[in-house]
């Protein structure tokens, strides 16, 4: 049996809309947050969970962390049913909701950690060892006596992670952990997650809209849209399906005009730069380069792949999300 087993999970929410004239009751609308979602995750995997806003990602995380009960379907994490064996289950998991805080606003973060230690009944020796490890890896040493309200967003997120991991959970849910962070903080956070995953074998399920989080951390991704699972597999394979275009940025020695660009490519101009988007499958790169040389004296040019966010946007469009 896999570490996380999810089978045909369904969850609907009922939303009451505004009452129109002539209606006695407010009309109900049922929204399916999850439809027949099934997947398995093995121990020690680091899985990315993506999809547009409202796709059902957070609902899945909430069901798997025992907060919500699904309407139908089965799920187990390490042999426990999250919503049925809630207390036993939550002892073994850690959760980070990127947009919320679990630490106390007005007291030094060390004191919030001490309270979490009591809540999870972590023995003193284990706590000391784990805190030593986490404070070093997350660079929290100097911040321990600082109240949460005085920390920057990046420092706060590191503190939140420490709080979610100090009871050494075997499974960690991360719901948009890098939201709003600067580049340095993001990198630190990613490195830490990799370290935690490799060092301790912690299974991590990561939901995010930041595709760099996914490319840097996850080899496996699941795509969710309108409550259905649309893709589950290697990230590279998923990207290859949509990664059909290349972008050339070129500069010429002189002003050029009236060039006959090949049929089917898009050309934009940005100051001195010519930006050409084309599909190598239709127009071979050699042909493209030949045409560009005919146009004038080429000073420099670069060929780039599409940026990942665009790929994902295209994927969502094609999947009609």
């Amino acid at each position, binding site marked *: 049996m896999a570490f996380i087993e999810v089978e045909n999970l369904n969850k609907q929410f009922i939303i009451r809309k505004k009452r129109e004239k002539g209606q006695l009751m407010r009309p109900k609308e049922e929204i399916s947050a999850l439809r027949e979602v099934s997947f398995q995750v093995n121990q020690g995997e680091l899985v990315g969970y993506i999809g547009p806003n409202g796709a059902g990602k957070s609902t899945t995380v909430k069901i798997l962390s025992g907060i*919500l009960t699904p309407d139908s379907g089965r799920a187990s994490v390490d042999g426990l049913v999250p919503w049925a064996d809630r207390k036993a289950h939550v002892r073994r998991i850690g959760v980070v909701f990127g947009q919320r805080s679990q630490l*106390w606003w007005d007291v030094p973060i060390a004191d919030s950690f001490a309270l979490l230690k009591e809540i999870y009944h972590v023995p003193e020796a284990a706590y000391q060892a784990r805190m030593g490890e986490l404070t070093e890896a997350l660079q929290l040493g100097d911040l321990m006596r600082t109240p949460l309200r005085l920390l920057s967003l990046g420092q706060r997120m590191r503190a939140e992670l420490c709080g979610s991991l100090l009871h050494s959970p075997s499974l960690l849910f991360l719901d948009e952990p890098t939201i709003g962070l600067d580049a340095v903080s993001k990198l630190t956070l990613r490195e830490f997650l990799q370290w935690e995953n490799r060092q301790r074998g912690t299974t991590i399920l990561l939901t995010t809209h930041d595709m760099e989080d996914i490319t840097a951390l996850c080899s496996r991704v699941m795509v969710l849209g309108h409550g259905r699972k649309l893709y589950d597999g290697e990230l590279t394979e998923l990207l290859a399906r949509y990664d059909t275009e290349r972008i050339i940025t070129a500069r010429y020695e002189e002003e050029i005009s009236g060039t006959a660009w090949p049929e089917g490519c898009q050309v934009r101009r940005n100051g001195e730069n010519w930006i050409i988007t084309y599909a190598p499958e239709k127009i071979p790169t050699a042909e493209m380069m030949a045409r560009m040389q005919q146009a004038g004296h080429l000073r420099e040019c670069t060929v780039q792949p599409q940026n990942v966010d665009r790929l994902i946007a295209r994927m969502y469009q094609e999947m009609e999300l």
Partner: protein
Amino acid sequence: MMNRMRSFRTYGAIFRMRRRMETQYRGAVLGGVICQVFFGLVLIAVYRALYAGNPQHMALSAITTYVWLQQAFFRMLLASDPDLMEKIRTGAIAYDLCRPLSLYGYYYARILAQKWMGSLLRALPMILLAILLPPGWELAAPASWAAMGCAAAALLIGLCCVSAMENITMAFTMRTLDPRGVQAMMNLLMMTFSGNILPLTLFPDRWQRVITLMPYAQLLDAPIRLYTGEYALGEAGRILAIQAGWTVILIGIGAYLWRRNQRRLIIQGG
């Protein structure tokens, strides 16, 4: 047994944490004390005017004592934990739901700590001040040392009782997501029937029989009447039993509501 001990320690730790938060805002304490002293003086001025024209069966000093003790522990009655409200409104409560704790116990410990520390911090300076006021305005000494002891015990039970009430309000807030409706109604009942606006001792005798049995009278009215000797020492056992009875009932209702809440949750935002 071992488990029970450990979870008791956990709720104790939550209590201490929340209690400590309450000591952080000295400015709020000072503001509260000034406000409550002002209210106390105004109320006493009104009762003095009433007594000047038409003396009631209760001694004026019993009334002023009643007013001061009500004002001193005002914070116990009317003050919801803003952090808890915020958590429910924004959905940060999601974190509390994935802790290996009973939600009822978690919130009960927090509410108890807030009401205990919040009212203690304000009550001590106010009581000191009120003792020093001239006769006719002052907080009088307790009827006896024994009465003082019974009053203290009754105050502790009252604190547990009011925390249970507050946790019921929280359970409803969890459903409606906005505390204002429920709170406005509860506050009106609270202010009237706890004796905060008009001492319950001044209500007509027939009313008294009903009012003193209501849960609101168990919070501050019962301890104050034990303090002033309005309730004789012989009655203390019965009074404490009524208080404890209500506390148990209200905790039962609250725990049931929270269990139901937990089964039908929708967390706000994402």
